[in-house]
């Protein structure tokens, strides 16, 4: 009998609580929606889109023609592709020097003397500057006839070497420029790491007579593992992303000898040599696959940490 009276009373909270009941699983998706949407549109979807484009012959404006694997077939017969690939390997290997070099400088600077904070900031300086500016600075440093390096080499009796115009040295010259900010980056990672090294363990090891290199190798470096991981990750990514310096310092020259895959891709797809979007996309896919090997490694390690950590 009382039901009609109770009914609306029941209904009201029931309707209100739909949100109350469901907000726990709906809320995350509402928070995620804008970010995930943007990321899907501008990052995830384009990856697959590029793979698709790599099977076409397309100038970017007109009709695209499906040509199957032909771009890849052409690529495997393209000397410029192999030069770029070889340079990518050189970049990757030599760029890794940034990790120990950064550690070395970090150890050198990890003291408590007056003004050390300013020194640390100034050592970090190269990382804050744009790669375009770093490229211009080094182009000037290497300039033939009057560049500072040329002067130093001449003073050492090594003669006049135009680093950026010489096919033998050009890639190494650009890598040296790239190492400058990258070493600064690794240094700052290690300075933070060294700051968190457990003093007890260091003191204990010291009492056991460990010092110098043995201390570094057996006590300090194991504790720096998180910093090393990040330093290696950012250095690998940085090496494979190298583009700015090459574009600024040599534009891929002389005779394309300083190209890397990222630069060669850009040149094929968007330069005065014509818009070969399909061929460019094929180069990008190869670069992506190389990068994927490393990315999977990082992700695999991060998942392991996630599982173990919490």
């Amino acid at each position: 009998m009382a039901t009609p009276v109770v009914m609306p009373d029941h209904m009201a909270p029931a309707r209100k609580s739909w949100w109350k009941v469901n907000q726990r699983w709906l809320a995350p998706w509402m928070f995620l929606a804008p970010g995930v949407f943007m990321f899907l549109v501008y990052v995830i979807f384009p990856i697959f889109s590029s793979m698709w484009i790599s099977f076409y012959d397309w100038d970017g404006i007109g009709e695209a023609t499906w040509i199957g694997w032909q771009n890849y077939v052409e690529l495997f017969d393209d000397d410029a592709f192999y030069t770029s690939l070889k340079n990518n390997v050189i970049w990757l290997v030599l760029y890794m020097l940034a990790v120990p070099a950064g550690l070395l400088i970090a150890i050198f600077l990890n003291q408590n003397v007056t003004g050390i904070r300013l020194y640390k900031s100034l050592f970090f300086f190269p990382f804050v500057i744009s790669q375009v500016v770093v490229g211009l600075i080094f182009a000037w440093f290497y300039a033939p006839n009057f560049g500072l390096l040329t002067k130093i080499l001449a003073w050492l009796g090594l003669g006049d070497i135009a680093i950026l115009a010489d096919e033998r040295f050009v890639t190494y010259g650009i890598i040296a420029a790239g190492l400058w900010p990258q070493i600064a980056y690794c240094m700052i990672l290690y300075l933070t790491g060294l700051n968190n090294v457990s003093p007890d363990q260091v003191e204990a090891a010291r009492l056991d007579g460990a010092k110098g290199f043995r201390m570094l190798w057996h006590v300090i470096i194991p504790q720096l593992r998180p910093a090393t991981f990040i330093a290696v990750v950012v250095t690998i990514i940085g090496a494979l992303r190298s583009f700015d310096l090459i574009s600024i310092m040599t534009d891929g020259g002389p005779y394309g000898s300083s190209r890397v895959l990222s630069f060669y891709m850009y040149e094929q797809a968007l330069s005065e040599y014509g818009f070969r979007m399909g061929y460019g996309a094929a180069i990008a896919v190869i670069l992506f696959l190389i990068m994927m090997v490393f990315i999977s490694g990082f992700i695999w390690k991060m998942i392991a940490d996630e599982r173990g950590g919490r």
Partner: protein
Amino acid sequence: MFPKPIERAAPATRFGYNIALPVALVLWLLPLLGVMMTSIKPAADLTAGNYFGLPSSVALVENYTAVFENSPIGQYIWNSFKVTIPTVVGTIALSTLTGFALAVYGFRANLLVFFMFVAGNFVPFQILMVPVRDLTLDLGLYDTTMGLILFHVAFQTGFCTLFMRNFIKALPHELIESARVEGVSELKIFWYIVLPLMRPAIAALAVLIFTFIWNDYFWATVLVQGSHALPVTAGLYSLNGQWVAAWHLISAGSIVAALPPVIMFFLMQKHFIAGLTLGATKG
């Protein structure tokens, strides 16, 4: 502390260290110092072959005004600000939301979405280049600062989500639990409880993203052409082509272009380094 504090070393070592510090710094910054010196040299010094000696007179004002008068660098710098600041705001807005969602809720796709952001953040730019350029053209945003902003916001959200999520995860979870028991809605938990605690993370990301975007060169060349929208990095590249061998102008222009992130870094150093070294200490 490693290495052994220098205060405990012999006086000779201490003295040596205090000499070695400035020497190492000068060597480390040698290329930069050279460029700074060149930027205040009168043009006559360069034609006379005085590249490394001290400037015969200080042409600081002349060179720097010449850079602004003879080139659109003022416009380029303004464009850089027009790209950088909205990108910082947009990225932080999106990534506080995504970071919150991934840190607080244990839904099934959580790790999948999280690793999508992390992995996407590492891909080479070239695999995105052709489709992103097409998309920007289709949206009618090619050669505008807006086209650059949208891409930068989307891409930087990847890195910032990783950062924000880890930051929120480290906050005490009981805070959120007890608010839920009180019946506070999820939106209010985000706005009134979590967001105020995120200030340090927001500050760190703001300086980092500012620097990354200011220094971006690749996307500036891919998505923009005309000097009305060209950021200073790409602008500097085209000026370099015009000012062949006018090294005093190139140097002055480079220093001008580098200045905003440098100032930002010195003002917000603590936040900048906290952002950059995220994860460098936790086991």
